[in-house]
């Protein structure tokens, strides 16, 4: 800290006019432009932005861990010491003891071949905090502190023996082990389920108060910001466009970008117009209907997709286990059924079964009266023409060797529909429909952004005018504003083409916005199903309530109330 400004012993981390440049293969990228920010001890400052905003470059720059092709200018101070220009040895001593980091991917952040204990004690011994037995004791203490039961035994285990949430707790234990002034948490909850996310956020809040540590929270999730942060800085394309207290920025945004960003966040409880226009009967064959017969017979609606007592099995190492058990639902034309649940709930498995990527173990799966499970050969392939698919990962869902035009009309080629001319026409029409310029037909997937590729995927799914569209987490890999644009387009296309849709998502707010009816899953079984408005706003099951309570909303006041409510709920209904 320079003496002119007066030393502030509470300042843990300080950026002054920081610029970061990266040398890419064919050009140079100015990733961060004139970045300034201060984090005090015991304070959480959030850095919010979408892809390419440069927020992760900030984090790695502060740790002195930028790759060799990067260049930093400006001033970064950790507890009064300048980080830039510090020699390697001093920089190393500063890491963990003054500034520590929590990474996004808990599954890969820990070394798979070393025990958790080894990885924890390593830093303790290196920074001379504890040695030998004492280090083991301290490590167990740390594990206990981050809420891992039975810490002494678990020290001897390897990372793969822990769940994703537990691994993130271990990474946090590692970060606090040497008592740093500040922790940089780079998207610490992005890879986690909502309920786990809520727990990790609680843990971070508790630890920073207990240890008087500052936290620089890097995230794209406004709900997380509202939940944890005191102050927030919004970044767009390398610049901070707005900064202030969380209350000010989230409730009275000044910059246009912040406003778009906030408007783009799907907000649970402000459901879209579709929920109101819900057809009576809910479009769902309830659990009773699956068992009985009266209700199903009387409806005039012809369901496009109907599942009854559906079960799916995976075989792993010669043993079969049921990923999905006894699921029943119906989707009619023009309807969207939202399948929600956390990872491992079996929701994507159902999407795969409907798409013919997995076999049905038992039960019925009817598409327009044809049992998909019983179809073979030519007729099975013909049935595929009536179902379109959109997948999650925009980086992987298009063949990198196909030009966009070819990607879009591939279903037509596969089913021998149309000739060269009519296919080209169709490609242009579809590109218009997903609002991409026609010149894109000759481009390759790697030249498009994630959101644009997802729009191409939707165009491809619609190429044969399908009666049913299966969308497996189509927007969860996208940035918020991009997600909003894609969802809006999706809803519009759905009302124009009136296809039935099975929409798989972990994001309750997105489902709330889009779906007519909802099926909540857990461990391969139905927890609750019914009209979206009913299930998401008057949930009857505890699990649904917990799930809803865990999803943060981007309004600090409301989020605090929700947090208290969740605490109360958990106190009264402890999670199993």
């Amino acid at each position, binding site marked *: 800290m320079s003496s002119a400004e007066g030393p502030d012993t509470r300042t843990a981390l300080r950026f002054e006019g920081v610029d970061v440049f990266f040398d890419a293969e064919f050009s140079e990228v100015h990733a961060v432009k004139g970045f300034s920010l201060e984090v005090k001890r015991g304070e959480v400052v959030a850095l919010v932005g979408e892809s390419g905003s440069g927020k992760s470059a900030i984090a790695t720059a502060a*740790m002195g*861990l930028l790759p060799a092709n990067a260049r930093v200018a400006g001033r970064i101070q950790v507890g009064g010491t300048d980080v830039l220009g510090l020699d390697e040895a001093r920089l*190393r*001593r*500063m*890491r*963990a*003891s003054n500034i*520590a*980091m929590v*990474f996004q*991917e808990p599954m*890969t*952040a*820990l*070394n*798979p*071949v*070393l025990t958790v204990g080894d990885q924890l004690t*390593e*830093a303790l011994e*290196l*920074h001379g905090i504890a*040695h*030998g*037995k*004492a280090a083991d004791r301290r490590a167990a203490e740390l594990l206990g502190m981050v809420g891992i039961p039975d810490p002494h035994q678990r020290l001897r*285990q*390897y990372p*793969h*023996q822990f769940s994703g949430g537990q691994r993130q707790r271990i*990474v946090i234990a*590692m970060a606090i082990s040497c008592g740093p002034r500040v922790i940089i948490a780079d998207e610490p909850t992005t890879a986690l389920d909502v309920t786990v996310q809520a727990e990790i956020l609680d843990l971070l809040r508790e630890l920073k108060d207990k240890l008087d540590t500052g936290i620089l929270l890097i995230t794209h999730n406004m709900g997380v910001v509202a939940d944890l942060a005191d102050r927030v800085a919004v970044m767009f394309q390398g610049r901070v466009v707005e900064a202030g207290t969380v209350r000010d920025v989230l409730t009275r945004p000044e910059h246009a970008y912040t406003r778009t960003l906030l408007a783009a966040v799907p907000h649970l409880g402000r459901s879209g117009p579709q929920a109101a226009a819900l057809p009576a009967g809910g479009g769902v064959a309830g659990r009773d209907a699956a068992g009985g017969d009266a209700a199903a017979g009387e409806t005039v609606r012809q369901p496009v997709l109907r599942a009854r007592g559906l079960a799916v099995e995976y075989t792993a190492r010669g043993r079969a286990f049921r990923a999905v058990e006894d699921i029943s639902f119906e989707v009619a034309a023009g309807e969207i059924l939202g399948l929600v649940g956390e990872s491992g709930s079996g929701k994507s498995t159902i999407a795969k079964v409907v798409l013919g990527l997995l076999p049905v173990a038992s039960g019925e799966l009817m598409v327009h009266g044809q049992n998909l499970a019983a179809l073979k050969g030519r007729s099975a392939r013909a049935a595929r023409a009536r179902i379109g698919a959109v997948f999650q990962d925009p980086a992987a869902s298009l063949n990198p060797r196909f030009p966009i035009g070819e990607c879009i009309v591939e279903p037509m080629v596969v089913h021998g529909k149309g000739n060269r001319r009519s296919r080209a026409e169709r490609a242009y029409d579809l590109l218009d429909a997903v609002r991409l310029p026609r010149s894109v037909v000759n481009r390759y997937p790697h030249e498009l952004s994630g959101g644009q590729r997802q729009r191409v995927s939707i165009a491809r799914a619609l190429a044969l005018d399908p009666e049913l569209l299966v969308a497996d987490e189509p927007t969860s890999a996208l940035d918020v504003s991009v997600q909003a644009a894609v969802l809006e387009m999706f809803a519009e296309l759905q009302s124009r083409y009136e296809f039935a849709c099975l929409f798989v998502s972990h994001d309750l707010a997105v489902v709330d916005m889009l779906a007519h009816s909802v099926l909540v899953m857990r461990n391969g079984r139905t927890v609750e199903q019914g009209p979206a408005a009913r299930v998401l706003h008057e949930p009857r099951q505890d699990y649904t309530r917990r799930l809803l309570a865990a999803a943060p909303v981007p309004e600090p006041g409301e989020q605090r109330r929700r947090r208290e409510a969740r605490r109360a709920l958990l106190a009264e209904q402890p999670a199993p």
Partner: protein
Amino acid sequence: MLRFILRRLGASAAILLGASLLLYVLMVNAGDPLKDLRESNASNRDELIRQRIGFMGLDQPWYQRYWTWLAGVAKCVTLNCDLGTNRSGVEVSSLLANAAGSTLRLVVLATVLAAVLGIAVGVLTAVRQYSGLDYSVTFLTFLFFSLPVFWAAVLLKEYLAIGYNDWIANPAFTPAQTAVSALLFGFVMQVVLAGSRTRRLATFAASAAFVALVLPYLQWLNFFRYPQLGFGGVVVLSLAVALSATATSAGLRNKLVLYPVLATVLAGAIAYWATFGLMENPTWGTLALLLAAAVAVPVVLGRVLGGHLRGRATGAGLATALAMAGLTTLDHIFRAWPGFLSLKPRPISTIGSQTPNFGGTFWESFLDRGAQLLLPTLLLALISLASYSRYTRASMLEVGRQDYIRTARAKGLGERTVILKHALRNALIPIATIMAFDFAGLIGGAVVTEAVFGWKGMGELFRTGLDQVDPAPVMAFFLVTGTAAVLFNMLADILYAILDPRIRV
């Protein structure tokens, strides 16, 4: 784990069976085994043909012959192998016993050497990616990849063996040779150690000066004919190892590591004199016992004196003890060298796996076999070394991009710990499998190497067998190489499980 190994073993046995059938069928169709006799005009031609038909069982259909062979192999379970006879009626099992020893010695030694050096070079080049060292090693590996073994062997024989043999008769360096060696050594050292320009210059100057002084001194000592290390040399070098091991593991001021390591050196010094008589003409058994003692002493000392740092103390002590044991052995080998030279004035010969009727003590015949083994091992090792270093480099670079390496750096760990503890163990996992698969290829390479160096090994067995369309020796060759390949695969699986806890637990 056990079930996993047993299942793999079963699958491997089935594969071996299938492969043996394939090879047998191919061998039977590889030509006419009686061709030379049919064309001969010896008076007893018909008698000879009848005899060979009897030895080879040519009067039976091929599947019956295969079955007989298989039944004979099955007897190996009772340690009573019957591998049939070759076309002249000699028991193949007796031929194999002689051949397998020398070939496996060659291949195993070459593999171990190539693996250790290859991994080391690979790690170094990955750490120094895009440096002068990396480029030179890359070029050299490509050169070794592209080198025809048999051609390189002739060059080695000519320049290394014959050149050395001529030189050792009267070892001397001309001033020009000394100067060139010094400059070359200095250049290589600065490439390997790298650093800033001044550091490179200093390294170059120091290494070049060292060589320029040491070579004439050694020549003056007549070191090359009468090499010596002596008790003093052993102790001084061991102390150097001890101190650097202490420095790298805990720092020289750390008494908890320093004392047990120094105690190890003291124990080694006592052992030097205690075992002196024993070591003058030992057997492999006594050597193994002494090695066990060399491992046990530092472990005990480290555990007792190391306190809470006993892990590091044991490690540093072990390194010291092994270095000291090695130096003591080297000292005895040095002592045996003049005697060996008088028995065999041209030490490196280029034919055969050992000098026939070579008398001499344990160390002298050890040196003889070593000298015979030198060139083929070098050749075989160089080629595998090239590929191992490439694999290791690629694997290290891949691991270097993983998140957990970033986590390790974020903890403030030094580069050495990050690389050796966090990166290398992960990088070795894929390499273990690759090496196992390479082993079969290496045995193939041994066929050529043996041909060039005139070894009477398995390669010879195979070549003559194939040339004479005689299945029994070829199948015996396959039995050994196939089994070795399967064993190595299993070793790789076990190694895999040791390295990767995700498989183990």
